[in-house]
C-alpha cells in the first residue's frame, strides 16, 4: 500500500493550546452530567459541531474527539471515538481529549464568553495541554494569558534513538510561572502541562531552520518508444 507521509508533523514550528495541531491535545474534565454541544473552530472560523454526553453512570473514562472530523457536521452525527471505541459518552469522573488528525489552528468552545463551560483558547485550572516536540532544537514557552515564560531544549542523540519507546512524558505545572521553567526533552518525548491558572500556552521554535544539505537531483528520462514487434514468450 502506498502510504502518505504526514508532512505537517515535521513542519510545525508553533504549538499552541488555543490552536491545536497534529501533535497537540487539550484535556478537560466535565464534572457535570449533561449533553454538551461544542463548536469547533479553525483559526477562529466555525467549522462544525460535536455533541457528546457526560453521565454519572457512563463506563468510559475517556472520550477522544478528533476536531478535524467535525468539519461540516451539525453535531447530530458524532465524529469522535471514545477511548474504548464503544460509545460517545463519558463518565463525570473521566476526561475528554480534544485533538486533531489533520491541519492546525483548531479550537473548541462550549458556551461563549464568561458563561463558557469550556474554551480551549482559555484553559482553566485542572485542564491539561499535552504535546510532542519532534524537531531537536530550542523552543520558548509562554503563557499568553499570564506572565509565565520558560524554555525547552529538545535533543536527539544516537543513544536516545535506542530508548525512544521507553521515554516517559515530562510534567510541567502552569501557575504564575512554569515549574520547571527550563528543561530538556528527547525528541518524541511527551510534554504535559497541568494548568493551575488561566492559560494559553504557546511554544515557539527559537532558532531558524538550517538548510538541509542538497541530496542531489532526480533525473527523469523520456520513456523509450515501445517496440512494435510482438513480445517473445518467456517460456
Amino acid at each position, binding site marked *: 500500500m502506498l502510504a502518505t507521509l*504526514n508532512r505537517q508533523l515535521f513542519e510545525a514550528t508553533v504549538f499552541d493550546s488555543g490552536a491545536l495541531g497534529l501533535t497537540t491535545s487539550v484535556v478537560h474534565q466535565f464534572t457535570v452530567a449533561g449533553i454538551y454541544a461544542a463548536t469547533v473552530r479553525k483559526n477562529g472560523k466555525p467549522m462544525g459541531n460535536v455533541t457528546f454526553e457526560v453521565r454519572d453512570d457512563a463506563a468510559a473514562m475517556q472520550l477522544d474527539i478528533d476536531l478535524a472530523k467535525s468539519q461540516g457536521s451539525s453535531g447530530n452525527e458524532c465524529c469522535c471515538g471514545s477511548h474504548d471505541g464503544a460509545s460517545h459518552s463519558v463518565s463525570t469522573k473521566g476526561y475528554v481529549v480534544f485533538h486533531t488528525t489533520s491541519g492546525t489552528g483548531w479550537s473548541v468552545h462550549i458556551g461563549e464568553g464568561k458563561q463558557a463551560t469550556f474554551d480551549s483558547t482559555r484553559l482553566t485550572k485542572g485542564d491539561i495541554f499535552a504535546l510532542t516536540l519532534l524537531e531537536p532544537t530550542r523552543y520558548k514557552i509562554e503563557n499568553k494569558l499570564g506572565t509565565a515564560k520558560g524554555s525547552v531544549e529538545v535533543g536527539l542523540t544516537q543513544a536516545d*534513538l535506542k530508548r525512544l*519507546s521507553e521515554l516517559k512524558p515530562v510534567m510541567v505545572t502552569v501557575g504564575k510561572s512554569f515549574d520547571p521553567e527550563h528543561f530538556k526533552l528527547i525528541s518524541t518525548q511527551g510534554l504535559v502541562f497541568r494548568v493551575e491558572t488561566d492559560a494559553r500556552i504557546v511554544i515557539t521554535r527559537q532558532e531558524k531552520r538550517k538548510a538541509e544539505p542538497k541530496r542531489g537531483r532526480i533525473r527523469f528520462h523520456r520513456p523509450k518508444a515501445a517496440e512494435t514487434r510482438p513480445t517473445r514468450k518467456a517460456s
Partner: protein
Amino acid sequence: MANLTIAVSEGSFVRLFNAIRDNFTFAAADSADFGPFTASYDVAFHLENGSVDLRSDNTVKVDELDIKWDKLDLSLGIDIPSICIGGWCIIPTPFGCALRLPRICIFDDDPDISLTLPLGGITSEVSLTGRLVMRHFVNPARPPGMNAWDAQDAVPSLASEWRLFFDDPIVDIDPIDVADTVGDQLEAAVNAAVDNLLFFLPGWARDIINGILGPVIDLVRAILDIPDDIQEWISDLLNVSFGLLDIIAQFIIDYFGDKTSLTAIEDPYPLLPATANPNNFGPAMLIPVKIPIRKLNVFNTDVEMVLEADIG
C-alpha cells in the same frame, strides 16, 4: 533386418548436443502473495559446458551441465508497520491508565517498501540421462492430399522428418544456492528502500523514524519470518515456495525431450539429388532419388550412436 545402418561416433554426437545446448535459453517471471509479504522473481539463464557420455546400457548421460544465470532477481514487497508517536499514559492508576493521549502516526497507513536482490553471478549444475528416440514428424501445415515429394518441393518445405530426441529424460538439478553474501545484500537493500521512502525528509526526521523503527533489517527479518540463515530462507523461497526448480526441470525435459531435436532426417530421404540429364533424350533434369523411411530406430553403445532404417 534393417535395410540401412548408419553409425555416428561419440565425438559427432557431442557436436550435435552442443549445438542445441548453445541454443537453449530460459526466462521466467512470477509473483506470489505470502501473507505478510509479496515476492516475485525474474530469472533467465543459458547452458554451458557439460560432459556427454554414450553408455553401454543404451543411455546417454550429460553431466555437469552448467546453468549460467544471466538474471536471478528476487523482489520482496513488505508492509512496514505503522510508525507512530505519542499514546503515552499521563494519569496512571493501579487499575490501568485513566488517561492516555492519542497516538499520531507518521504515515496514513502501513508504508510499503520494495526491494530487489540481484542474486545472479552464481552457477548451478544440471545433469540429464535418457535413451535416444527417433520420432516421426508430419508437418501440420501439409495439406491432406499432398504427397511426400510435393511436400518436399514446397517453399517453405512441408517435408516430414524423423527427429532425434532424448526419450523422456531424467533431469537432476542442483537447488539454487544463493551466495552467502545475501544477508549483507538484504540489509543494504532494506536500508536503501527505507532511505528512498523518507528521502525528502530532513535528516533529524529520518533519524527519528529510524529510531522508532529500530534496526530495520531486524524488523524486516521478523516480518518475513526469516530464520538465522537468510541464505537458506531465500534459496527455499525460490526452490520450494515458488517451485522454480520444478519449472526449470520441466522446461529442460521439454526442451531436450520434445521441443528441440538433436538432428532431423528428411522423409523420404534424398539419396541422390536432382542432376542434369547426361543423355541425348528425355528431360533436361533427372529427378532426385528419394527413399521413404518406413521405420527408424536408434540406439547407442559406449562408443557410437547407431541408426537403423527400414526403407521402402
